[in-house]
């Protein structure tokens, strides 16, 4: 069974976690062009690679960042956003 480490609760089975998408900086909605905003809203970086993602440990409601390889599903590390890597 696949495990993921919650920064607060420790290693748990993957079914306890919800995936929240890639961590991406939001452009300033007041300053950005319509095209750049559509790019932010819709387009995704969907190549297999290690990237930073939002995940939530659903029983405890802890949101955190996971560095995961989307080609191999290897989880490199997890940490709270506030604490940093």
């Amino acid at each position: 069974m696949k495990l993921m480490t919650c920064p607060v609760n420790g290693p748990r089975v993957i079914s306890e976690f919800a995936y929240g998408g890639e961590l991406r900086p939001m452009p300033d909605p007041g300053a950005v062009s319509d095209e750049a905003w559509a790019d932010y809203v819709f387009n995704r970086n969907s190549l297999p690679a290690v990237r930073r993602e939002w995940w939530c440990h659903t029983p405890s409601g802890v949101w955190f960042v996971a560095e995961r390889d989307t080609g191999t599903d290897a989880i490199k590390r997890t940490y709270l956003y506030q604490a940093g890597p």
Partner: protein
Amino acid sequence: MFTRHARLKPGYEVVIIGGGGHGLAAAYYLTRDFGIRDIAVLEKGYLGGGNTGRNTTIIRSNYLTPEGVQFYDESLRLWQDLSQDFDLNLFYSTRGHFTLAHTDAALRTMRWRAEVNKHFGIDSEVIDSQAVAEAIPMMDLSCGGHAPVLGALYHAPGAIARHDAVAWGYARGADSRGAEIHQNTEVVAIELEDRGSGPCVAGVITNRGRIATRKVLCAVAGYTPRVLAMVGLRSPIYVHPLQAMVSEPIKAWLDPIIVSASLHVYVSQSARGELVMGASLDPYELHSTRSTLDFAESLAAHMLELFPFLSDVKINRQWAGMADMTPDFAPIMGPTPVQGFYLDSGWGTWGFKATPVCGKTMSHTVARDEAHPLIHGFNFDRFARYALTGEKGAASVGH
């Protein structure tokens, strides 16, 4: 069955990336309807080894948006005489398709779908639980008391077909008219040039050498983001695995196709007697075709809620495909901002049933360099214009 070509030619009029059903169908209709024979279909693995051979073979047209309904209905029409067209038995079998409703909300959506369907002349109706019981007597309508069946959307033309044969039929037809099919041929780069009006396709680099061409059709399902990166395009496509499994062969007892969105189950019985079962997408992005025990356990548990008598039946095989998903559950098809680069993608969990009409419309699009009228709602730039095509009926399960 096919001609073997020792080497690639230095150039082709059209290069099709992806030797699955969609790419081969496009090659077939390009040769047959447009007289374009100077074609190379490049497949990095073997024919139909991707999502064409990994789906659960369901064919239907009871969608939700007018764009979707018209498109899939044309596909269903093409399916019905494909066996004769190919002179190859596709085991096309009309079974009837029941989408079960376990809640009032689900029934309301089905009435909406039925009305849209009927407006376009499609055989689709809402039936009550008594009619479901008569059609599928082996089913436990109370679902163990958790989610009783209130009714269903019934689509009489719902069908299944042998998926490998679809790829082989299109391949043989294209091959006999002069298109070249190259397996074990992987595209590693696409050459672009600027002839004065922005980026244009100039050639394709493969693991077997360079090919000059001005037209490339990309029909690679879960590999779409990787090919788009070769031409510098960004898209909303994201990739999740979609798993499925089959039981051991058992005596024929299930004629229709059963779908339950609430229970995350779809199932039909193949001509060999296996129960072919699927559920919803894997819960997170992954570019892999690995299988999980979580999936098999949860799907088996839901199957037993509908059919408790199957508790002794064993699972024979389990597998996955990579589904190229879009935010509005409609495909992305047609010309792109790169001249000569045509896309047939975003087919997520609903591509098999669309194989013939994708071949038809994409061959038109490539030959005439303009989108076929049936795919106008699916164009590449709809996201930049905030003009989405919300196809919530796209897959029966999971969205």
